[in-house]
């Protein structure tokens, strides 16, 4: 009986090894381990053995059964893995086929740049405020130290709505409103729309955008102005960007400067963008004119401050290399989708 068991086991294991698919393997299982299987049949014959032989034989049979079951299980797993692999293989895609585009809109490029600026200045502790676009002569000119007969009025062609009402030509008007309503320390930026009677062309628009900055506190110096503008320039144009002051004139600041930064295109070597100078002009700034402080009820003996005005449209067109400012206001979706 022992011998029979041995040969049966070898025979069964050989059959398992020979099975080429799950169906054949199952047939092997039924043939040997099924209710009427050959190995089962041996177990059934156990009764005919002596009580001494029975446990020994029982152990052997069970051992053979376990061995066979293990072999079948291994083979089965092998078939499953293969089948899974085959399925994955069949599901292989051509990954170079076009994607399903994600649906997404976007901000207008002017506001993308504006939001960057707001982040920079807000992180330096500047409040972001707003002011009216229709201004009175007082806020747009008079309080900014541009009296009626001042030639500086000619610097900006103004749209008038009534004798005393105009479309603001500069966000600086918001300086006055801020200083009238807040007490120092004041640290604000005021982004907004401004208007000048410029004919529309590739670089001029009667509607454009500025960001006004104003700081008023005790002991504010021109070096502080440069410090803030350096921070700003480093964030916008990169760490190694240098800031240069050039004397200039604005009625509401004294001293007044134009501010140049290292040309971002050539890094100061001189190129077409900077007309060979290595610098590009980005904004006007200066120390708040004592007369302006006084007009707002702030004592210039006690406080000083600085102000700056950044042209957002110019910043946007240079950042994205947009050659014609009119594209910003035309709103062709194929243009807007690029930002």
């Amino acid at each position, binding site marked *: 009986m022992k011998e029979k068991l041995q040969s049966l086991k070898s025979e069964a294991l050989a059959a398992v090894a020979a099975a080429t698919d799950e169906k054949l393997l199952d047939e092997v299982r039924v043939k040997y381990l099924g209710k009427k299987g050959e190995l089962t049949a041996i177990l059934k014959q156990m009764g005919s053995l002596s009580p001494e032989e029975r446990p020994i034989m029982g152990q052997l049979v069970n051992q053979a059964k376990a061995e066979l079951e293990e072999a079948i299980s291994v083979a089965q797993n092998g078939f499953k893995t293969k089948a899974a692999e085959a399925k994955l293989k069949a599901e292989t895609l051509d990954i170079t086929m076009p994607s399903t585009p994600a649906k*997404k*809109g*976007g*901000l*207008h490029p*002017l*506001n993308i740049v504006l939001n960057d600026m*707001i982040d920079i200045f807000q992180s330096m*502790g*500047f*409040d*972001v405020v*707003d002011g*009216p*676009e*229709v*201004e009175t002569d007082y806020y747009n000119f008079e309080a900014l130290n541009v009296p009626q*007969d001042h*030639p*500086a009025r*000619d610097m900006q062609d103004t*749209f008038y*709505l*009534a004798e005393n*009402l105009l*479309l603001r030509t500069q966000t600086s008007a918001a300086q006055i409103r801020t200083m009238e309503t807040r007490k120092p*320390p004041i*640290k604000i930026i005021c982004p907004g*729309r401004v*208007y000048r*009677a410029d*004919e529309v062309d590739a670089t001029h628009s*009667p*509607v454009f955008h500025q960001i006004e900055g104003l700081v008023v*506190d005790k002991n504010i*110096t*021109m*070096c*502080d102005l*440069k*410090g803030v503008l350096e921070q700003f320039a480093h964030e916008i144009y990169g760490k190694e960007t240098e*800031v*240069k002051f*050039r*004397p*200039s*004139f604005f009625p509401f600041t*004294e*001293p007044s400067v134009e501010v140049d930064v290292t040309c971002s295109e050539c890094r100061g070597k001189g190129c077409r963008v900077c007309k060979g100078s290595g610098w590009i002009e980005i904004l006007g700034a200066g*120390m708040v*004119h*004592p007369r302006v402080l006084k007009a707002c009820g702030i004592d210039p003996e006690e406080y*000083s401050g600085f102000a700056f005005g950044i042209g957002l449209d110019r910043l946007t067109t240079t950042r994205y290399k947009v050659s014609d400012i009119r594209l*910003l*206001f035309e*709103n*062709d*979706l*194929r243009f*807007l989708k690029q930002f």
Partner: protein
Amino acid sequence: MKVSLSWLKRYVDIDVPVEELCDKMVMAGFEVEEMIDLSKSMRNVVVGKVTKMERHPDSDHMFICQVDCGTGEDVQIVTGAQNVNEGDLVPAALHDSDLPNGMHIKKGKLRGVPSNGMLCSGEELCVTEDDYPGAGVYGIMILKSDAGAPGTDMREVLGLNDYIIDFKITANRPDCQSVLGIAREAAVVLGKPFNEPNPTFKTVGESINDYINVEVKNFDLCPRYYGRVIKNVKIAESPAWMKKCLLAAGMRPISNIVDITNFVMLETGMPMHAFDLRDVKDRKIIVRNAYEGEQITTLDGKEHTLTSDMLVIADGQEPSCIAGIMGGMDSEIKDDTTEIFFECAKFRRDSVRKTARKLGMRTEASGRFERGVDIITVEYAMNRCLQLVDELGAGEVVDGNVDCNAGLPTNRELNVKVSDVVALLGIDISGEKMVEILNSLQIRTTLTDGVLKCFVPSFRDDVEGRADIAEEVMRIYGYDHIKGTAMTGAIMRGRKLPERIKADKIKDTLIANEFNEIATYSFIGSKAIDALKLTEDDARRNAVTILNPLGDEYSTMRTQLVTSMMTVLSTNYSRKVQSARLFELSKVFIPKALPVTEQPEETPALCMGLYGEGEDFFTLKGIVEAVIALFSDMAPAIDRASEPYLHPGRSAVMSVAGKKIATFGEVHPAVAEGYGIDGKVFIAEIDAAVLYGLEKTKTTYKPLPKFPAVERDLALVCDAETPVGVLENAIREGAGKLCEDIKLFDVYQGSQIAEGKKSVAYRVTLRSAEGTLTDEVIDRAVNKMIKKLDAVGATLRS
């Protein structure tokens, strides 16, 4: 302000390259708009003397010339010109030379005869009769006998060894609208002495009072009027040096007297005027306001009708000059003028500006008066003028002057603490250094106990206080000394206004829903709003208008964003952009009264526009709801809109708590067609101000369900006209607290349903937070729903 380098060199020893001068001037506040190297255009062209001429053997019109070009040996040049004679001085372009017209000359052969260059015409050298007499003739330009020795560089002869620098003068520096002003600054930046002319001249006795009587009637508009008389005038050509200066500044030389007035204007910044005394009637000069309707013909031959706010210089009978702008034709200087009255004055700048604007005139003089001229320099300029008359022998100066003024200022005294200047700038500059800088700028300054005592000359009336002193010091000391520092003081947290935060929230939501933001002008055409077919009395037609618009299409401050949005949609549509979802969040301008007397209300408005496949009323409705949901946890109420520009059956108004927030829907096909859109297009307008005013109650977390939900389908029949919203409300009421969700999944009208009816199918989800729903509870809820539905005329479909 255009100045030639050679003119500047008359007053300052400029020994640095012109580029360096320009850089230093820029850093002192004088931006260089343009710098032209006059010599660049011409090279290797010299004065040649024609020593011998022979006819070309193989040509009936060419000559073979031997030309002395100062090289020791005559150069053979063939020319086709017929106006050259032996002994003439001519411009000779040698082998390998460049001409201003772009030509490059090389030696060659003309019909077999070697020619080692070219004789030039005025045209080839880009020289006109104005620049050099004789340059305009047809043929070779024959030079004057004193033009220079053979071999002299033609650039020298033509004054081309020079640079023209165009400085941009800021509005605070009218004193630098003059060569002397620029020279004063150049001297300071170069650290050189400033050699200001000190005008002296001789007079010939007699008295000005015998020639003229002057009266100023309006000192407010003319604070100073200064005059001198010249007799025995000899009108002639100006000397070459003066012509060269004028040409470099872009002015045409005319005659000695006129050229002197122009030269002095450019040099000192003071406009001058010369009257032919013969034509000054009654020998009287009266500075007065014009009489209403008075007429004058100005030098340019144009007639003007004057108004009483304009200042004129009149003689005993009529105006002979529009003050500060242009002289009259009658009293202009003529070839036979023998006696002259010279005028130099200060006129009020806004008066000149207003008059010039009104008459549509702008002259070199008016530009200077508008920016402001110095009252003290008036006399200096006159003296300089007389000096030149004397030097050039243009006439004899009569004794005495007329000086009408209402008082002259003295140098203003300013006392500024050194420590205040240092505190403003943030860098340490010594008081001594400040004194040095200010004195170099002719602001006479001394230092005592840390205080600068400054005497500011009247030509610097922009210098009023310590900030100005700080600027003067800094721009000369050099802005590169300013080093960035971090501000000290309280730490502040930067905040945005609530309105901006809310706007950002809206934008985020719209962008996530595939919307792109647009930016359009705040003004629209006066007729633009007509495209919306609004009624005549619609409030949106009441708009603020611009008094001086760039054109009608930019004339009206918008009261709504729809027209701008439609225009942008139309642009995209016509350019075959397949689909678009756009929004604009901007201000609209609502006047309080018209015509405007005070600032209009500027309120934020939101407009969304869309078209393309898959877009319909309901996609837009979903967006509008999503935007409203950002600010309200109350579901908005919906009603039909009656907006002329929207489709009457496909438009709606949404409101929250009775406040109208949004108007939206399909654009009326007739309106869309007006914008050139022949497909469906959808627009929503949201009153952002009302939206921002809504309050969203604090949202807290709602626990996830613990018990299973039950779904029940309801197939209903109702009148075809009944809005489904009514059914939905009935279901919601009937289901009460158990209602979790109501979904409309079918609406049907047709053969299976009675005429005038429709079938509507809902899937209702019920759930309780307390426990699993029993059949009994569910049935009760369903019965309640059916009852409520019954009340609105909807029954279960059998």
